[in-house]
């Protein structure tokens, strides 16, 4: 039927690269002067960041009254962006931890980048809970610090769970990422001729010396960290979904939210990783390491998670009818045919309909269509959160206070700024640290392991 041979293990890396080639290919972006294209990209993203910074500064000075929020939509872009960016982060941990536990070797080419993206996305996401309080300089009180007021935080509040979940997630992702980086930094330390770089790499690599007595523990801790990161990544988006689901608002209070949010997070995260990787493998010539097969597998994951999200949409609709609760059925009908129907249909078409194109192998394996679908998925997932938050709130229990939320330029400025922050960090990262794990890619080369006896 076709040329796949199941009897041999598929190669992760193409083009019969040697160990030295891997070193060269991966560290090349760090050792050469960047091109004009690089500066152009950096310029665009830092402009966006600047727009965001100005909007944010004005918001902090004048207060959150500058945003479009009011009664009854008291929660809008801030929480939408938060959920969106936390979701983006989930792909990284999924690739680095869950696929590691499932021994999916194709993850090696993309794991490092995905992990870094997790950290940047969570950092971006973390901004929003901090600024949505309106007085971010008092956010220290979100942590249980003994204070002169003898007050404690409310541990039964899902917003406090968020604080714990997001900060734990950021810390553990960082540790996981850094542990993975240490051997690569040691390799770079031995390679570099520049004195300054040598000092920096020496400090960061902690004097790692590739000892097999160390590797022995290192493999163990990688397994342990992956074992912890897996439930952690589920818990983080679960807790984010609890923000909504523990309430009694129809459309928010539904028990499928935890797994549905996790699936959606992985879905959007994979789309983002796929998009950025397509660009990176092109400009840094990493086509042999980040292969088309890898991208195809990512598209398959997107198809699967897209179907899961579609399942959740269907389930919510069905149960809204099945429950016999008029409030539930109203909310869902209102989503599909009410004041924000346009947002709902953007969400459904981007998340469920367009991704069905990935059933076709041709589309899974051609760069331009998959890139476009990836972008659409991210648009769709952003609108999913918008639908959940804004549509539901704008038609609450009290019809007299119904209102139509319109974002102001400050809302949009901060949204653009979040993209600016994320991409600026990504662009700086790809020139400062190896985007692909040298260690892991080497270990899955064809001749790299001794033959088993």
């Amino acid at each position, binding site marked *: 039927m076709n040329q796949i041979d199941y*009897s041999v293990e598929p190669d992760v890396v193409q083009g019969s690269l040697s160990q030295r080639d891997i070193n060269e290919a991966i560290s090349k972006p760090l050792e050469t002067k960047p091109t004009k294209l690089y500066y152009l990209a950096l310029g665009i993203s830092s402009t966006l960041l600047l727009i965001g910074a100005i909007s944010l500064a004005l918001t902090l000075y004048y207060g959150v009254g500058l945003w479009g929020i009011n009664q009854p939509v008291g929660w809008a872009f801030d929480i939408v962006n938060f959920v969106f960016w936390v979701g983006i982060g989930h792909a990284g941990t999924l690739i680095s931890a869950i696929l590691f536990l499932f021994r999916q070797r194709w993850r090696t080419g993309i794991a490092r980048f995905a992990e870094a993206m997790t950290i940047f996305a969570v950092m971006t996401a973390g901004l929003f809970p901090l600024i949505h309080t309106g007085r971010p300089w008092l956010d220290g009180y979100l942590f249980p610090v003994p204070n002169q007021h003898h007050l404690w935080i409310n541990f039964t509040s899902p917003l406090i769970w968020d604080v714990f979940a997001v900060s734990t997630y950021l810390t553990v992702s960082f540790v996981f990422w850094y542990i993975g980086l240490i051997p690569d930094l040691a390799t770079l330390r031995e390679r570099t001729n520049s004195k300054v770089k040598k000092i920096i790499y020496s400090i960061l690599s902690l004097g790692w010396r590739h000892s097999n007595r160390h590797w022995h523990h290192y493999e163990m801790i990688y397994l342990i960290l992956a074992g912890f990161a897996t439930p952690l990544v589920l818990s983080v988006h679960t807790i984010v979904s609890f923000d909504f689901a523990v309430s009694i608002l129809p459309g928010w209070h539904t028990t499928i*939210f*935890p797994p549905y949010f996790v699936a959606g997070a992985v879905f959007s995260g994979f789309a983002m990783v796929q998009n950025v990787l397509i660009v990176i493998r092109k400009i840094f010539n990493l086509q042999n390491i980040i292969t088309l097969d890898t991208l195809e597998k990512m598209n398959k994951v997107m198809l699967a998670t897209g179907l899961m999200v579609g399942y959740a949409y269907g389930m919510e609709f069905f149960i809204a009818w099945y429950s016999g609760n008029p409030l539930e059925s109203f909310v869902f009908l209102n989503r599909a045919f009410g004041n924000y129907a346009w947002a709902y249909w953007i969400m459904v078409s981007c998340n469920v309909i367009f991704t069905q194109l990935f059933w076709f192998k041709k589309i899974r394996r051609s760069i331009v269509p998959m890139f476009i679908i990836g972008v659409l998925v991210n648009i769709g997932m952003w609108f999913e959160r918008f639908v959940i938050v804004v549509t539901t709130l704008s038609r609450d229990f009290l019809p007299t206070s119904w209102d139509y939320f319109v974002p102001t330029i400050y809302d949009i400025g901060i949204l653009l700024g979040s993209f600016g922050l994320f991409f600026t960090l990504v662009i700086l990262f790809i020139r400062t640290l190896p985007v692909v794990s040298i260690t892991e890619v080497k270990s899955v080369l064809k001749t790299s392991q001794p033959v088993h006896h």
Partner: protein
Amino acid sequence: MIENTTVLYQKKEIPIRILHLGFVFLAIGVIGSIIGFVVEPARTSFNFVVLIAWCASIGTGSLFFIGIEYLSGAVWSVPFRRVAEVNSAVIFTLPLLIVPVLLNIHSVFHWSHAEEVLKDEILKGKSSYLNPSFFVLRIILIIALWFLFKSLFTKHSRKQDFTFEQSLTKKNTIVSAVFMPVFAVTLTIFAIDWLMSLEPHWYSTIFGVYYFAGTFLAALGLFTFASIKLNESGYLLEGLGQDHYYSMGALLFAFTNFWAYIAFSQFMLIWYANLPEETFWYITRGTGTWMYFSLGIIFVKFVVPYIALLPQPAKMDPKRLKFISLWILFAHYYDLFWIVMPTYSKDYFVFGWIEISSILLGIGLIIVNFYYFANKTNLIPIGDPKLKRAIEFHL
């Protein structure tokens, strides 16, 4: 492209005493259930609902396992795939179990009483979905779909034993891809129809996922037990051992956690929001003697398997795996019993000879089914192109 396998496999018959053992269980179970249907038809029917859900779990969970193997390109599980195929044949017993319940439908499903439904506004709203004729139509369709996919998987897989064609693996991969969405929808409808609609006023959107978590655990439990037992008694191949067992242990561990996560999410959200139209389901299970049974589920289905499988060496210890896989299979029965039986007896926990005979009936069905289907095929998919890699598989 025919490639000869280098694997030497000698088929061994499963001894007849296994069948005898199965018949003993089956005979007691059948007699007990027949008497049960005569003496206490309602109670026996409720027990049969538990049994149906349990057998459906084992059968469809095994199909899901096969599908996942093809889709993910998993290697370690190839030599054991026939075990999952044999286990999935349990779905053939479902019609036998379903018919007696359908004959007693009025004593099990409150919504099947047309005159009661007319008195109840909410049930009236649902009656276009929850009515006996559509219900029967759905279960026939669902079972037909399961039979279809089961026979497609097995047909291609068995054909490969003789032809060694790689294209059959490809075909089964496509079947798996189509099966997954079908599986999700049918399993959810099955869970809503047979378990959730027992309390027709209650609803929970996560319920399908909850049933899926238990389903896959139960299927993995039987799969792990049967695979290790067969391998130890020499029915499979040389060279299969702890490295392969580790994956089974890890999956059991992972899905134990997944079940706990889903169960906790459902409970927590309903407890926290405290809406009376949802909480009554948990209140029934949290009062009277049912409370102890409900607390027991935390230990039976989560704490015991979690602690038993937590250390890394435990995940590849065949002795412990054999015990804990049977435990998990039992835990799924316990879980289903907890979902179903409080509807029959709201105030107090019931357990007696009717319950025991339906459990024995279930065990008997599984053993007899296993004997027949295991003897019909090779226990190793000798034509599978991944088989050689699977035997060489190391952690």
